[in-house]
């Protein structure tokens, strides 16, 4: 069958915040740009972001600035972050947020008419630009509408809306193509028709988001199958920090069918408290040593902080997510959980009903419709849910370039920015800052090329055969393989890990890798979800192998990686990144240690030596 062929300068895979911001940048730099996404335009996972975008605009507390944001980000990531990324992020986030406003976004306002900012875990000052608790929707709709605005400009000039930027919706990329070392295009299929499609392009920006669908309990949608992570690996790029997975402390726990759906951190930012079955605000018992002087030690002080931040310390409910998730896990394990296996999150006794509905409208709606719980009169039950992967494609901080020439990555699929744990609110700002940078990086790369890399027929033939294979077999049901992978990762490489269990998971993954070669997809090529899942399984298995192998090697506990058998944080390990690479056929993953470059002097000087001593080795401090 004929393969549809398109020629572009830049192909962006993924249409969430990072992908759209990258595509907008590439188009603004005059590049012919394709946006290829698995869902309809405007449905990407970014819509689920609730709390806000962190940017040190200082609208609510004028003491805030990029240096404070940088420090908070490094602390949240337990100093494993790529400091250059954290620096760029803190410096550029305000401009990226203001730019959205010029494109039509309507954030909530302060009294003097500026963008309002809210408190969030790990952020020293109110910092999150937000729209109630539906900030992600505002962000994606604004970027979507900006793409449309650019298309309207192109229509005026060229008589064709799609002259410079086109959205290929419900289109899945299954392979990146290369000419020698460099990217030459991407290969995929239309979900709607099952027809195959080839993008001939010298630059590809990966913006595919995360990997949550390898876990049973997750806040992530079906799209989060680690496609970009896997495509990068198969193209010869490297992944870092794959052992660090963020379990968001507050997912719904009941009813079973909604287990894992996110309950925004804004509930706690706006005054909600966590209690166990004894009614205790247990977070006061879980303030770790490194944060001891920054959090309130009594309920009274924590409560005063909401109205007087200058003279009080924040309540421990607002510790970084990894700390809160582990605390909830421990309470449940100790038998002090709620009836359905979580803990209680209560905002009903903390704010008037009208205020709750105003500040947290979609939480109110979600609990009422899905769980028959009225959060203005009763507590919610919540527990940890697989939410975000800190690990991803190793990229150059300034340009988003991966090790493979022509390959770029931004947003959740890239690694480094958040270190071992991401602060809430730093994701929406991350994808704006680095989406733009990756779009610019890809554009500059295209400009620098003496000639376009060529797509070889051989690579197209093998990509075609790989994509169609599940349809030509009548093998095992892909849904069963998927379910087993999810259970395995959830139970054995979850929030608390140990060597024996991770090894067991790796054995299961090996067996599943064999089984995946046998799965068959019944039915035809038109909109066939069984076929789509069969192809996604390759990616999920590859990524799961990276997560498990890196988790087994890192013999310490830090951020989103907690080892029961190595409970402490070890400064020697802080200096090391675990770097995953794969064979071209994806049959094996190898993990190597790499030393992180030391932080620049002027950035180090932003911290007290006493704080640095908690994280850095003596050698680094001297």
């Amino acid at each position, binding site marked *: 069958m004929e393969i549809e062929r398109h020629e572009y300068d830049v192909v962006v895979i993924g249409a969430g915040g990072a992908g759209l911001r990258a595509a907008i940048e590439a188009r603004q730099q005059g590049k012919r740009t394709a946006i290829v996404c698995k869902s309809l335009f405007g449905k990407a996972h970014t819509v689920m972001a609730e709390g806000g975008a962190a940017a040190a605009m200082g609208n609510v507390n004028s003491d805030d600035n990029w240096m404070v944001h940088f420090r908070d980000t490094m602390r949240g990531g337990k100093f494993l972050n790529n400091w250059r990324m954290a620096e760029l992020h803190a410096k550029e986030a305000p401009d990226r947020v203001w730019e959205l406003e010029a*494109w*039509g976004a*309507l954030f909530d306002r302060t009294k003097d008419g500026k963008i309002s900012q809210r408190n969030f875990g790990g952020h020293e000052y109110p910092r999150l630009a937000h729209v109630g608790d539906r900030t992600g929707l505002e962000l994606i709709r604004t970027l979507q*509408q900006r793409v449309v605005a650019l298309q309207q400009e192109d229509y005026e000039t060229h008589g064709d809306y799609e002259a410079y930027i086109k959205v290929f919706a419900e289109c899945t990329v299954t392979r990146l193509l290369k000419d020698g070392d460099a990217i030459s295009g991407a290969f995929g299929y239309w979900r709607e028709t099952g027809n195959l499609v080839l993008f001939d392009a010298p630059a590809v920006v990966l913006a595919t988001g995360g990997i949550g669908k390898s876990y049973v309990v997750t806040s992530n949608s079906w799209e989060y199958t680690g496609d970009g992570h896997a495509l990068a690996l198969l193209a010869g790029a490297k992944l870092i920090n794959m052992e660090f997975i963020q379990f968001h402390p507050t997912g719904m726990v009941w009813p079973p069918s909604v287990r894992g*759906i996110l309950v925004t951190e804004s509930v706690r930012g706006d005054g909600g408290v966590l209690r166990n079955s004894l009614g205790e605000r247990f977070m006061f018992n879980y303030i770790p040593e490194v944060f001891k002087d920054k959090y309130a030690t009594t309920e009274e002080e924590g409560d005063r902080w909401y109205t007087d931040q200058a003279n009080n310390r924040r309540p421990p409910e607002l510790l970084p997510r990894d700390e809160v998730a582990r605390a909830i896990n421990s309470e449940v394990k100790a038998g002090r959980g709620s009836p359905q296996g979580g803990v209680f999150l209560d905002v009903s006794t903390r704010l008037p009903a009208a205020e709750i509905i105003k500040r947290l409208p979609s939480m109110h709606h979600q609990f009422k419709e899905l769980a028959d719980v009225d959060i203005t009169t009763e507590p919610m039950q919540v527990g940890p849910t697989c939410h975000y992967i800190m690990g991803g494609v190793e990229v150059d901080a300034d340009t988003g370039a991966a090790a493979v020439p022509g390959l770029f990555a931004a947003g959740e699929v890239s690694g480094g920015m958040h270190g071992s744990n991401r602060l809430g609110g730093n994701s929406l700002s991350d994808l704006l800052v680095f989406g733009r940078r990756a779009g610019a990086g890809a554009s500059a790369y295209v400009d620098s090329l003496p000639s376009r890399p060529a797509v070889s027929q051989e690579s197209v033939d093998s990509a075609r055969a790989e994509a169609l294979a599940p349809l030509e077999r009548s093998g095992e049901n892909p849904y069963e393989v998927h379910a087993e992978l999810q259970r395995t990762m959830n139970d054995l490489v979850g929030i608390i890990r140990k060597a024996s269990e991770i090894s067991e998971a790796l054995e299961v993954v090996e067996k599943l890798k064999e089984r995946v070669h046998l799965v068959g997809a019944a039915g035809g090529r*038109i909109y066939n*979800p069984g076929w789509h899942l069969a192809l996604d399984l390759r990616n999920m298995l590859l990524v799961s192998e990276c997560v498990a192998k890196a988790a087994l090697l890192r013999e310490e506990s830090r951020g989103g990686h907690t080892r029961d058998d190595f409970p402490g944080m070890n400064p020697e390990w802080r200096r090391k990144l675990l770097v995953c690479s794969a064979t071209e056929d994806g049959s094996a993953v190898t993990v190597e240690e790499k030393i992180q470059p030391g932080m620049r002097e002027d950035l180090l000087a932003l911290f007290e030596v006493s704080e640095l001593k908690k994280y850095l080795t003596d050698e680094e401090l001297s």
Partner: protein
Amino acid sequence: MSYKAKFKVWRGEGGEGKLEDFTVEVNEGEVVLDIIHRLQATQAPDLAVRWNCKAGKCGSCSMEINGKPRLGCMTRMSTFTEDETITVTPMRTFPVIKDLVCDVSFNYQKAREVPSFTPPADVRPGEYRMKQIDVERSQEFRKCIECFMCNNVCHVIRDHEENKPAFSGPRFLMRIAELDMHPYDVADRKESAQKDHGLGYCNITKCCTEVCPEHIKITDNALIPMKERVVDRKYDPLVWLGSKIFRRPSS
């Protein structure tokens, strides 16, 4: 707690299809989309359905359940009796691709025909100052998750294919109202709302408001005020002149 439910699900492609019968397990707390997923995993692996977030936030899983436009992820099974047969069909106003999945490109086309946000040329990013009360009107409309059920249910196009070229549907008439009420938008949208997007076709039966999963008061807060603005324009030349001379206050 769990029981076997009877489902009729529309299956087919290329303009042909029929309702197929299924008997399928239902557990406590489940929604219709869970049951569709169970059918995929156990009985019909190629059953096509669009979905993403499964939390009522993305607007992908629009379908008709017992003839009513609903989000599959927000329709709890407990709203039906155990012996009730539940019929699930695709949205009627848009062409079916396969099973429960429609071609909704009509909506994306209409979205592209609404002129974009047009701020004054002299306001730079970071300089915007707006009162909360002034942004709230448009914020209500920006809650829209683009499930397109309002366009699906609107009788102007539901059974009248011929009206589609001239009518953008509640979703995009509301988008025009949203921009018109944006404190910084300076484009003139009244005439085009009527002429290019068919605001006059709307006879405020409020079907759109009734199906909106975000509970946006589409008719009362967007369409009727927009109609009033258009009428003011038509009959009062001073209003028109004033809007040209006086820029909206920017703080």
